[in-house]
């Protein structure tokens, strides 16, 4: 039977694997997830006689944190492992599981009392209210969540666990980690089935389709879909994951064989030689996303008739492959994964438009790809079908978006690029265009964002080198914001100011370390992380693609010379 540590490790992989840096992390643990993870872990002997993975999980937690059958002791799960991983995650998952059970069944009665009834149930503790050993949320629950948040930030992820208001302060943390409830999942699956949806959509398109069915959705689901800020993307990903899992295996969640989809999505990576300018067209490379929720090695994809190894480029993405053709972009494409067997396809979704943003880890690189939603105030490239131009002109006439220059025909003229495109206004209400998906993609969903530019980046670590930290710019519709820079290690503010938006700020970074930059105005806030690494911690890295000079049958790379058939020099 799996130990606490094995569950902890499996959960950690499930939670962070394949998530791009800078993204928020939600635990999103429920019984389906536990059931799925349990399939890959050693099972208790009772499992053959009806015990479930959830039973195993609860037993593992109890063995580790329950003393004398009636008291919680968290001493064994505080701190980090020798691999510098947090020990507390499986226990935090238990708390999220309790919150998820409560939210599922007691929508209108979310309280500490009900939450601890669920938690006691999982821990097999009698009685009501906070268990012994957990009497004080401030001394027990909160430090665990803060430690988890700190660990995430040190690795470049945005934390999402937040306290609640007033008496819900401590149950706010686990509640903030639940995304889709069982009822939401059931409703969504019914919708997929009733609508006979089978298309290879991406998250934005799928959520757009779901949103159009607003009248038939529950109030909670409608509220989820109206989420703004960082939770919006997490909800969309959760819905897409559910959709993919359902397409593969329409059985209810707990009976499904897999906890994560065998389908990967691909975006596009734009390559353009600006120096040759109009002489060459941009090329749009297939840009596969790495699997979320689980590690994967030695993947090979078949593009054309050629097997292509998928090599990691950065968390969440593989190295771009060959360019896609106009027809592949037009109709979408499925690429078979040759190995391993647990993965089946890479799907290039059929889209009428793509928003290509600057590399979030290296904006100066000149690269554009489908890395996500354009941050507020950051120009992007809109690659779209030519037929969408009248609608885009309409948005421009309303002062909602702008772009520089004329649309540039690409890909045999059926598509155009709008360069230096930007959403410029907050007043999108009341303007309608035929393509609602395009409208939703261009409409700003936040009113505040933080950009970090300049300085000397360490691209592979999403960090900057000490003494060469970035300038910070808060972009927003308000004129001023309160800006705070805090050190992650001790949560202490190192810089506070009222800062004008759209004006770069030279931050007096106090030295190497992890910092959280937070901008607040009118009750809204946004944050981003900045990591500064000392010079003596710059490790040499193997480039994803090594440039070589071919001379005859040899390859020259710097001062090394090898025969071409030896591969990289």
């Amino acid at each position: 039977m799996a130990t606490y540590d094995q569950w902890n490790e499996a959960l950690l992989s499930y939670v962070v694997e394949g998530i791009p840096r800078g993204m928020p992390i939600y635990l999103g643990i429920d019984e389906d997830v536990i059931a799925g993870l349990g399939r890959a872990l050693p099972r208790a002997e009772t499992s053959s006689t009806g015990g479930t993975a959830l039973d195993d999980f609860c037993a593992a937690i109890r063995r580790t944190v329950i003393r004398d059958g009636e008291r919680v002791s968290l001493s064994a799960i505080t701190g980090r492992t020798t691999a510098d991983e947090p020990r507390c995650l499986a226990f935090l998952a238990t708390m999220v599981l309790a919150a998820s059970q409560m939210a599922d069944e007691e929508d209108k009665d979310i309280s500490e009392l009900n939450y601890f009834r669920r938690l006691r149930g999982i821990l097999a503790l009698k009685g009501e209210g906070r268990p012994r050993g957990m009497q004080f949320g401030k001394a027990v629950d909160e430090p665990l969540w803060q430690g988890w948040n700190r660990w995430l930030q040190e690795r470049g992820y945005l934390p999402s666990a937040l306290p609640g208001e007033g008496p819900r302060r401590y149950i706010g943390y686990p509640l903030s980690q639940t995304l889709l409830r069982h009822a939401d999942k059931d409703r969504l699956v019914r919708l997929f089935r009733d609508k006979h949806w089978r298309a290879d959509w991406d998250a934005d398109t799928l959520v757009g389709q779901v949103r159009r069915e607003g009248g038939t959705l529950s109030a909670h689901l409608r509220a989820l879909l109206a989420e703004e800020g960082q939770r919006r993307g997490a909800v969309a990903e959760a819905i897409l994951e559910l959709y993919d899992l359902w397409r593969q295996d329409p059985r209810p969640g707990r009976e499904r064989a897999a906890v994560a989809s065998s389908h990967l999505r691909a975006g596009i990576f734009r390559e353009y030689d600006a120096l040759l300018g109009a002489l060459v067209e941009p090329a749009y490379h297939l840009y596969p996303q790495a699997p979320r929720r689980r590690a994967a090695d030695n993947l090979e994809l078949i593009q054309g008739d050629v097997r292509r190894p998928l090599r990691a480029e950065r968390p969440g993405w593989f190295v771009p492959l060959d360019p896609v053709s106009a027809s592949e972009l037009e109709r979408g494409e499925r690429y078979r994964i040759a190995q391993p067997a647990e993965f089946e396809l890479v799907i290039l979704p059929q889209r009428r438009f793509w928003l290509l943003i600057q590399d979030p880890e290296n904006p100066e690189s000149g690269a554009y790809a489908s890395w996500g939603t354009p941050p507020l105030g950051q120009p992007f490239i809109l690659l779209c079908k030519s037929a969408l131009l009248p609608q885009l002109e309409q948005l421009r006439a309303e002062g909602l978006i702008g772009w520089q220059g004329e649309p540039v025909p690409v890909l045999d003229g059926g598509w155009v690029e709008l360069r230096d495109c930007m959403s410029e206004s907050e007043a999108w209400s009341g303007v309608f265009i035929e393509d609602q998906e395009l409208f939703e993609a261009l409409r700003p969903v936040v009113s505040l964002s933080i950009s970090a530019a300049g300085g000397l980046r360490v691209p592979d670590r999403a960090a900057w080198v000490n003494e060469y930290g970035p300038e910070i710019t808060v972009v927003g519709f308000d004129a001023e914001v309160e800006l705070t820079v805090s050190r992650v290690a001790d949560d202490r503010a190192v810089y506070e100011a009222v800062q004008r938006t759209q004006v770069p700020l030279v931050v007096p970074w106090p030295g190497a370390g992890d910092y959280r930059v937070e901008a607040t105005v009118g009750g809204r806030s946004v944050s981003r992380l900045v990591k500064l690494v000392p010079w003596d911690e710059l490790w040499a890295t193997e480039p994803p693609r090594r440039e070589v000079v071919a001379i005859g049958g040899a390859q020259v790379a710097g001062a090394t010379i090898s025969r071409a058939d030896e591969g990289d020099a």
Partner: protein
Amino acid sequence: MPRWYGAFRCVGKPQVVLSQIAAKVRYDDLGRFVPRVYFEKRPRREFYLCLAIVSEPEGVPPREVEGLLALSCLSSPVRADGGRLRPFSRAEIDRFVGAGADVQDYARRIQRRRTAPLPVEDPFGPAYGEVVDPDDAADVVGRTALFDRLLLWLSAAGAGSFATFQQACRTLGLVKPGVEPRQILRRLRLLGHVETSPDGGRWSIAPTALTRLAGTEETLALCGARDEPLRSALRAAAAIEDVTQPGGGGPAALLARGRPAAQVARALRAAGADDLPEPECAAERLAALLPPIDAWADSLQQVPGIVPTLYDCRRFDGVDFRDVPFAGRAGLYELWQPERDAGPTAPRYTLYHDPAHDRWLRGDWYGLRYLARMAAGGVCEVEWDQGEGRLSVPDGWRWPELYERALVLASGRLPGRHGERLVYDAISARLIDLLAPSLRLHVSEVSIRCTT
């Protein structure tokens, strides 16, 4: 929330009416409710304007804008039956005020940030005018430290675009007139530290290597990727000397002496440089591989679609570029966009035209110039001091980069300047024998006295 339009008949000067509306919208912070105002095209003393109003139901303005609608300039609204403000659609107001109506925007907007873009720099752009400071310049040590940092950063980044390289050089303060990023990149390639893609758009750090200096058995130079653990391992394995480049124009040459090469290599492998090849004299091995200059020209990137008549052509005449109408002659050309209002400040392309194969070639600027000089019938006259192991090359005949790399790798140091000539150290007879035929050199043996 729908957006609808209310129309008003106004009297007076449109600018006065506009200023009254604008003041009220701003004072009451009404941009969310009244994002835009449209004025009749070419308004006269009596004119119509339309307010875009965001509210539901249409025709019922939100309470927040009651004060705005009470302005005397808006006292004549177009009303529907029942006296309410008549809601118009966008299509209707286009007919009403004309498609070319003046628009005033009150919505809160994001202003485009006007950040200074990186100067557009062709990685293959002109390399002339490069400045190398004198060796006794006060900032040689400081500049060397910055170049060392650049090399550490390149090793950590691994690879990137030319733009990222430009940005790094500027952030570290290495760029100044006469020392442009493309020139720094060239120096790093010569030293065996980085490599670039054929189009110059991408770079990657070169693999870590120990190269034996030409004519020695036990002096090694560290090339390519490095970090602090590797440097520490090298210090522990051998006697180390940091030798600054001429004028502090690049990262210091890290020379290891006093231990057998194989032993030093083993120590570095143990420190993590798993793929470190056996040390060899990279200069001589490279020189042995290099093809005759014509074959090298065949390996350059061909630029398709060049129509020279679309550009203002300037041809290199051996000293400078001169305006010439394109007549199809071989040579090095700058192709400039035809003069516009402001006038371009750099050529659009710098290319070698090869009429024999009807092709335009892109590549290392010095290499293209070498081709052009040879095409004009010139010969590169070099002087070699066999005793000192020094080679002197005329500045105007600087070699194609790969050939020059063989010279630089021989010592681990960039060339020094001696008047109008470049002087390379540790150049062995074997190197001269290998390179002279490929570049069709005329070699004279002399005594060269200078400090590089």
